[in-house]
């Protein structure tokens, strides 16, 4: 009996053709040793899927780079002060050019004062002046 040992892993992975898979399946029905191997392969597969992938150790990249003959990178550590200073300088330059203008409420007090004082000009209609100082203003207030 020839054991299909080299195809069992591919069988577990489901990468065999239908004919090959049928042949392996027929063999497994008769061979307890191969069934045990397939059971082990499936268990390993489940274990790998369930396992979390750990981060590579920090020394791995320098070691790899050294092994391929490139320059040794700077070891990870705090960001250099020159970079921080450059960042602050850039931010200051940008802030120095941006105007700071917070908005205020509409000038209702000014409009009211305007209406009251304009009403004292002889040729100004009181109705119009009062409209400015009351109705229009109050409407605006109500709409806010």
């Amino acid at each position: 009996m020839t054991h299909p040992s080299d195809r069992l892993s591919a069988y577990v992975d489901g990468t065999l053709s239908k004919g090959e898979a049928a042949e392996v399946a027929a063999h497994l029905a008769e061979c307890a040793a191969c069934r045990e191997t397939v059971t082990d392969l499936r268990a390993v597969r489940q274990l790998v899927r369930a396992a979390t992938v750990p981060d590579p150790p920090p020394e791995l990249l320098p070691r790899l780079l050294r092994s391929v003959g490139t320059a040794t990178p700077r070891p990870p550590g705090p960001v250099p002060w020159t970079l921080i200073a450059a960042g602050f300088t850039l931010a200051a330059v940008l802030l120095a050019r941006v105007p700071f203008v917070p908005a205020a409420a509409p000038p209702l007090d000014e409009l009211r004062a305007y209406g009251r004082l304009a009403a004292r000009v002889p040729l100004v209609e009181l109705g119009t002046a009062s409209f400015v100082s009351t109705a229009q203003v109050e409407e605006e207030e109500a709409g806010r």
Partner: protein
Amino acid sequence: MTPLAVWALSLALGGNAPAAAPEVLDRVSFADQQVAYSGEQLVTTWEEKLPQAFWVHVQHDPAVGTRLVIRSAAGAHRQVVWHTPHHVLQYDARTRQGRVYRFSHGRVSRRTQVTWLQRNYFLTASPTQLLGRPALRLHLTPRHPGRPRADLRVDTETGVVLRSERISPDGRSRELATFVRFAVRPVGWMRPSRPPADLQLQREPPVRSVTLDEVAARWGRQPPEVWLPAGFYPMTPYLLEGSVVRRAYSDGLATLLVSIRPAVSPQPPAGSRPVHRTGGPVWVQSAGLRQVLYWTYAGWSFTLIGELGPEALLEVADRTGVQPAPTVLEALLRWLGHSLRLSDL
């Protein structure tokens, strides 16, 4: 009005009308001291072709003052305003809540204001009729650019302005106040009238006349003089209202109101748009026929309201002085400095 005055006015209207205009102006400016009347007035404003209309019920008596009930044509809003020589009282007819203002400062004489008007506007007059009454049509055209035009219909018998139309310098905004019903009343007819007793009135801070030296003594520095367009004169002294110094100016028809506050950084009114000038930004907002300008200079903020065109008002800002807006960094450093000073306390 005496029969002699009616005869003189009629003679003036019938003869050389333009020459009679100054006399009529004089009569118009004194009419509210001599004539009692009541009526319904329609006030309409157009801003960028968008009309807004209000009905105003007008009652006037030289012995009492003027009572106006202003009703929005679009809503149920009803405001009542009483004008007396020393007070302005405004309240909402429904909520009975309002404000009362007191004038303690003097005013420029009416005759002086008529003189300003004649200096700044060309006057033409022609006889007409309104509400079935003989009237005089006065057309006021500005001598200076950037000023509004005005068209008045004056009641020949009383000198009361029955219809007043003002048009902005660019013709895009206008205001029309016209009586649709008008009746002459005997002087003293409003004497029994009193504002309702159940009003809840908020007394606005007293307005006090101050000199620039007093302003300087209060804030440690004097605000810069505001540059005035040609033909404008102070209508009031400097008025201190809370922490605001105000002064009104007039050219006889248009009014300018300048409000000055101590301010470190600008806080322009919401809805205004910045206009970049040589000195710095000036914020402009349109309020019907009026423009509202805001800018800062030398540690003070200026709010200017006037019926002049935006360019004429921007020149006021430019010539008074405009400072650049502070940057975010400057504002941050100022805030830090302020916080450190507070932490020392």
